C-alpha cells in the first residue's frame, strides 16, 4: 500500500474521529442517551463494514474475471497453435516478471490476435484448395461428388495437411488434364470423322454430353462421358469403314466401266477424288464430305448411269460382235443353221432374258470356232474361188464365142482376144481343178467327219452338178456344131438359088439370157441378191431390137424376115408374126394382135418411152428368196421378170367413134372398157 492510501486512511480515520467527535459533541448537546448512542455507533460500524465487504467482493470478482480471460486466451492460443501445428507460445512463462493479471492479459492478447489471423489465412488456403478439388472432382467424377462435404475439419489446419490437400489437388488436376486431353483427342477424331462423313459435329457432341458442346465452361470429363465419346468415335468409324467400302466398291465398278467404255478423261476427272481413294485405308480418307451420304448417292447415281450406258453399249457391242461373226462366216462361205441367230438376239438382251456379257462370250467363242474352221477351209476355199473365177471366164468365153462379130476390129478388140485366149487355157484347166478340188474336199470331209458346205450347199454336190452341166454343154455344143453344118449347107443352097447371103445379124439371144455356168443351180455367191444380172446390156439390146422392129412394122421387110418367108404365109401376117417374135425377145412386150384382119394398131401398144426394166423391177432380195417349190397352199406372187413369151391381152382396144374413120393418131387415145361400151350403147340408141 502506498503512502497515499495510508495517508488517505489516516486522513479518513482522522476525518472519522473528527466526525465522531463532532457527533459526540452533537450528542452531548442533544443529550442523546447512551443506548441510542451506542446503537447509533453500532449501526455506523455495521454500515461501514457492509461497504467494505461489498468493495472487496467486487475486487475479488474482477480478479477472477481477469484470470479466466487469461486462461481462455491462453487456451485459445494453445488451440490455434496446435491446429496450425506450431509450438505453443507460453506467454506467462516468458513473462515471469510481468506484474498483475491485467498486464498478463494484455501481453497474451496480441499473440492471440496474430494467431487468429494466421489461422484465418491458413483456412482460406485450405478452402481454396478444397474448392478446387471439389470442382475438379465434380468434373471428373460427378457420380460420387457431394457438393457440401468439406473434406477436412478445422482442427487440423497444419501445413502438412495443406500439403496433402495440395497434392491431392495436383493429382486431380493432372487427372483432369489427362482426361481433357483424352476428350480432346476424341473430339478431334470425332470432328474429323464428322467432317468426312458429312455429319453435324456439334449435334453429335451434344448428344454425347451437352457440356462438351460449350466452348468455355467446365466440360464433363467423367468416365462415362469419355466412354460415350469413345463409343461414338467407334460408331462413326464403323460407319466410315462401311461407307468407305461402299465407295471403294463403287469406285472400282466405276473404273471397270470406264475401262470398258473408254470414257473420256474429262468425264473421269470429275470422279478423280473417288477413284483415288480406291485403295486408301480407313484413316487415309480425311477429305471433308468424301463419305457423306449425299456424295455416296451422287457417286452411286453416276455408277448407275454408267451401268445403264454400259447396258446399251453392251447391246451395241453384242451387235457388233454378231456382225463380226456373220462377216467371218460370210468370208468363210459358212452358212450355219438358224440356231445361233436367235441365241444372240438383241431382243433377248433387251428383255433381260440373256446376260449381254454371257452372250458376248458366246459370240466370241463362236467367232473363235468359226475362225478356226475358216482356217481349215482356207485352202479349199481358195481353190473354190479359183474354180468359180474359171467358171465365170468360161461363161464369158461362151458368150464371146457366140458373138459373130467378135473378130471385128474395134477398140479394145485385141484385149478381148487376149482375154479369150487366156480364158480358153483356163477353161481347159477346169476339169483338173474340179478333180483336185473334189479330192481335197473328200479328204477334208473324211478328216472332219462332216460335209464341206459352201454358202450352205455341199461343195461336192456343187462340183458334181457342174460336171453334169459341163457334160450337157459339151453335148449341146456338139449338136450345135452339127446344126451349123446343116445350116451352112442350107445357106449354100440358098446362095446358089438367090445369090445373096443373109446379113450376119447378131442373134439377139446371144447375150440375152444370163448364162449360168453352174447350170440350173444358182451359183452361190456370198453377195446374196447380187447374183441378179444387171439388165443394162439387155436394155440396150432390146432397144435396138425394138428400133429394128419399128422399121419392120413400116412395111419394109428386112432381109432377115424375108429369109423367114419360106413358110409361105402372107407377107403381112408374117411381118406381124415376126414382130411378135421380136417382141418376145425383149423383156417388155406390148399386146400382140391376134385378130386376123384387124389392122387397127392397138391403142395400148403405144411404145413405152421409159426403160423397159422399170415395171419388172422386183426387190432384189425377193428374187433370191423366191422358193422353188412352195410347200404351203398359198402361192407366192409371180414377181419374176416377165417371161419372154408372146403373151396377148384378151382385151381388144379399139378407137371410139365411128365418125372418125381414119384416126390420125389412134395410138394417142386409149379407152376403157366402159367408154367403149358406152360408145356402143349410144350408137345403138342413135340407130
Amino acid at each position: 500500500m502506498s503512502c497515499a492510501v495510508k495517508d488517505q486512511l489516516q486522513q479518513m480515520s482522522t476525518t472519522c474521529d473528527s466526525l465522531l467527535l463532532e457527533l459526540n459533541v452533537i450528542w452531548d448537546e442533544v443529550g442523546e442517551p447512551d443506548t441510542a448512542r451506542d446503537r447509533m455507533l453500532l449501526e455506523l460500524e455495521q454500515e461501514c463494514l457492509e461497504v467494505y465487504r461489498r468493495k472487496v467482493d467486487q475486487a475479488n470478482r474482477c480478479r477472477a474475471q481477469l484470470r479466466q480471460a487469461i486462461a481462455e486466451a491462453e487456451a485459445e492460443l494453445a488451440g490455434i497453435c496446435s491446429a496450425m501445428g506450431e509450438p505453443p507460445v507460453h506467454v506467462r512463462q516468458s513473462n515471469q516478471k510481468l506484474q498483475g493479471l491485467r498486464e498478463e492479459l494484455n501481453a497474451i492478447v496480441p499473440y492471440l490476435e496474430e494467431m487468429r489471423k494466421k489461422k484465418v489465412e491458413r483456412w482460406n488456403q485450405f478452402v481454396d484448395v478444397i474448392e478446387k478439388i471439389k470442382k475438379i472432382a465434380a468434373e471428373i467424377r460427378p457420380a460420387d461428388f457431394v457438393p457440401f462435404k468439406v473434406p477436412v475439419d478445422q482442427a487440423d489446419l497444419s501445413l502438412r495437411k495443406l500439403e496433402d490437400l495440395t497434392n491431392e489437388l495436383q493429382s486431380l488436376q493432372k487427372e483432369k488434364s489427362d482426361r481433357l486431353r483424352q476428350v480432346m483427342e476424341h473430339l478431334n477424331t470425332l470432328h474429323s470423322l464428322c467432317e468426312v462423313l458429312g455429319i453435324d459435329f456439334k449435334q453429335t457432341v451434344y448428344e454425347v454430353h451437352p457440356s462438351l458442346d460449350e466452348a468455355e465452361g467446365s466440360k464433363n470429363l467423367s468416365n462415362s462421358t469419355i466412354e460415350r465419346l469413345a463409343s461414338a468415335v467407334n460408331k462413326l468409324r464403323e460407319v466410315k469403314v462401311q461407307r468407305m467400302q461402299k465407295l471403294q466398291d463403287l469406285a472400282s465398278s466405276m473404273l471397270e466401266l470406264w475401262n470398258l467404255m473408254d470414257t473420256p478423261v474429262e468425264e473421269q476427272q470429275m470422279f478423280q477424288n473417288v477413284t483415288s481413294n480406291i485403295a486408301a485405308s480407313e484413316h487415309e480418307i480425311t477429305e471433308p464430305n468424301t463419305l457423306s451420304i449425299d456424295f455416296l448417292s451422287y457417286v452411286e447415281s453416276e455408277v448407275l448411269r454408267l451401268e445403264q450406258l454400259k447396258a446399251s453399249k453392251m447391246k451395241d457391242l453384242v451387235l457388233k460382235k454378231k456382225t463380226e461373226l456373220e462377216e467371218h462366216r460370210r468370208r468363210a462361205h459358212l452358212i450355219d443353221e438358224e440356231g445361233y441367230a436367235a441365241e444372240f438376239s438383241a431382243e433377248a438382251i433387251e428383255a433381260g432374258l440373256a446376260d449381254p456379257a454371257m452372250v458376248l462370250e458366246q459370240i466370241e467363242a463362236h467367232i473363235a470356232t468359226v475362225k478356226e474352221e475358216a482356217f481349215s477351209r482356207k485352202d479349199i476355199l481358195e481353190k473354190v474361188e479359183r474354180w468359180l473365177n474359171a467358171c465365170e471366164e468360161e461363161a464369158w468365153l461362151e458368150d464371146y464365142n457366140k458373138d459373130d462379130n467378135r473378130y471385128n476390129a474395134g477398140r479394145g478388140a485385141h484385149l478381148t482376144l487376149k482375154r479369150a485366149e487366156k480364158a480358153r487355157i483356163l477353161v481347159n484347166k477346169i476339169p483338173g481343178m474340179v478333180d483336185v478340188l473334189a479330192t481335197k474336199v473328200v479328204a477334208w470331209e473324211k478328216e472332219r467327219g462332216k460335209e464341206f458346205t459352201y454358202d450352205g450347199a455341199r461343195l461336192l454336190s456343187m462340183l458334181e452338178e457342174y460336171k453334169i452341166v459341163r457334160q450337157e454343154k459339151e453335148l449341146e455344143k456338139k449338136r450345135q456344131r452339127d446344126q451349123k453344118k446343116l445350116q451352112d449347107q442350107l445357106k449354100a443352097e440358098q446362095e446358089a438359088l438367090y445369090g445373096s447371103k443373109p446379113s450376119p445379124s447378131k442373134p439377139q439371144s446371144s447375150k440375152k439370157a444370163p448364162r449360168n455356168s453352174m447350170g440350173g443351180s444358182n451359183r452361190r455367191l456370198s453377195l446374196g441378191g447380187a447374183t441378179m444380172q444387171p439388165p443394162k446390156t439387155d436394155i440396150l439390146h432390146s432397144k435396138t431390137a425394138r428400133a429394128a422392129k419399128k422399121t419392120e412394122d413400116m412395111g419394109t421387110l428386112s432381109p432377115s424376115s424375108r429369109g423367114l418367108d419360106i413358110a409361105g404365109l402372107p407377107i403381112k401376117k408374117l411381118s406381124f408374126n415376126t414382130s411378135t417374135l421380136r417382141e418376145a425377145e425383149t423383156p417388155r412386150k406390148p399386146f400382140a394382135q391376134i385378130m386376123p384382119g384387124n389392122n387397127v394398131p392397138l391403142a395400148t401398144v403405144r411404145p413405152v418411152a421409159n426403160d423397159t426394166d422399170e415395171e419388172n423391177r422386183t426387190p432384189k432380195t425377193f428374187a433370191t428368196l423366191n422358193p422353188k417349190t412352195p410347200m404351203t397352199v398359198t402361192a407366192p406372187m409371180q414377181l419374176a421378170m416377165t417371161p419372154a413369151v408372146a403373151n396377148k391381152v384378151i382385151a381388144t382396144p379399139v378407137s371410139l367413134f365411128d365418125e372418125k374413120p381414119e384416126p390420125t393418131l389412134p395410138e394417142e387415145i386409149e379407152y376403157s372398157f366402159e367408154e367403149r361400151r358406152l360408145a356402143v350403147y349410144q350408137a345403138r340408141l342413135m340407130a
Partner: protein
Amino acid sequence: MDRRPKIWPEPAVRAPWPRLTTDGEDPPTSAFGTLHSAAATLLSDRRRRRRAASGRRRFPSPEEKSSGDSSTPPIIPTSGCFRTSHSRQILPNPGDSVSSLSFSPKSNLLVATSWDNQVRCWEIVGGNSQPKASTSHDQPVLCSAWKDDGTTVFSGGCDKQVKMWPLLSGGQPRTVAMHDAPVKEIAWIPQMNLLVSGSWDKTLKGYWDTRQANPVHVQQLPERCYALTVNYPLMIVGTADRHLVVFNLQNPQTEFKRIQSPLKYQTRCLAAFPDQQGFLVGSIEGRVGVHHIDDAQQSKNFTFKCHREGNDIFSVNSLNFHPVHHTFATAGSDGAFNFWDKDSKQRLKAFSRCPLPIPCSTFNSDGSIFAYAVCYDWSRGAENHNPATAKTSIYLHSPQESEVKGKPRIATGRK
C-alpha cells in the same frame, strides 16, 4: 393394109363367149426357151383359130384344172346359172352387166349399179339376200358409194349426174352433182363430209354434203378419170394415159404428187393401203402394182402378175382391201378372184374361174362377205357381147379366216 381400119373390128372368134385356153400339152415355159415358147404361142394361136372356126366352146372348170385332164373338155351351159360351192347367188339377177357394188358401212345392205340404168339394193341376212329397193338413172350407172352413216347411197353414171338416194328414209333420189361427161367414180369422205366425183370430163369435183348446188372445188385432171380410191387423208385418182394423181386430203386443193403408173398399161382399178402408205394399182394387162407414196419406200414397190392363164392375159378389174386383215382381193376379166397378202408376197387363195369376167367386187364392212358380180365387162369389145345370152349375176362369198388372214412370210432360209 389395103382395108381401112375398122373401128369395131370383126370378132376374130365368133363364139359368144370364148373362154379359150391352150390345149392340153401346154408349151413348157422354161426360162431359157424364149424362142421355143414364142413358137408355141404361135402354134396355139393357130390352133385356137382353128378351133374357133369349128365353133367349139370350152370353159375351164375347177375339176378340169385339178385333174389336168383336158382331152374331153366339159361344156358348161352358158344359160345355166353358174354356181360355185363357196358362193351364194343374189337373186333376182340384174338385167345387164353390173358396174359397181358397194356395201353399207353400217349394215349388210348391198347396192349394185348396172348398165340397165338401175340401182338396186339387197339386204343380206344370214347368207340370204332379200331385194329391198331400187331406183334408176336415165342412162347406165357406173358407180356407187354409201354415206358413212349408212342412210344414203350416191350413184353416178352416163347421165353425167350424181344422185343422192336417201334409201333408209325412203326418200326419192335427187341430183346433187353434174359433170360434162359420164361420172366414172364417186367416193364419200366422212372425215370431210364431202362427196367426191370423178368423171370422163377430166375433172374431179368435191361437193359439200350436197346441200350446195355448186361444187366446193373442181380439180382438173390430166385425163379422164378411170379409178379413184380414198383412205383419208390419202386419195389417188387414176386416169387414162396411166396418170396417177395423189392427193393429201389435209390439203385437198392441190395435187400432192402426180406419177406415172408403175404399170405399162391402162389403169383399171386402185386401192389405197389401209395404212395410207401407198396403193395398189391394177392394169388391163393382168398385173398389179404395189406402190408406196413415200420415195424412201420405193424399194418396197413391186408388181406382180395375176389373172393370166397360160398365154392369155386378162384385165384386173377390182382391187379390194379386206377391212380387218388388210389383205386384198383381186378380180379379173378371167372370171377369177384371188386373195393376196402383199406383205408376205403370197397368194392366199385362188378360186376357180367363173365363166364370165368379174367386173367389180367388194367386201362388206366387217369383211365377212365378199360380193362379186359375174357378167360381161366389155373387155373383149362389142363383138363378144351377145345381149341375148349375156347373163349377169351377183355372188356372195364368205371368206374363211385362212383365206384372208395374212401369213408370216415363209422362212426360206438363206441362200
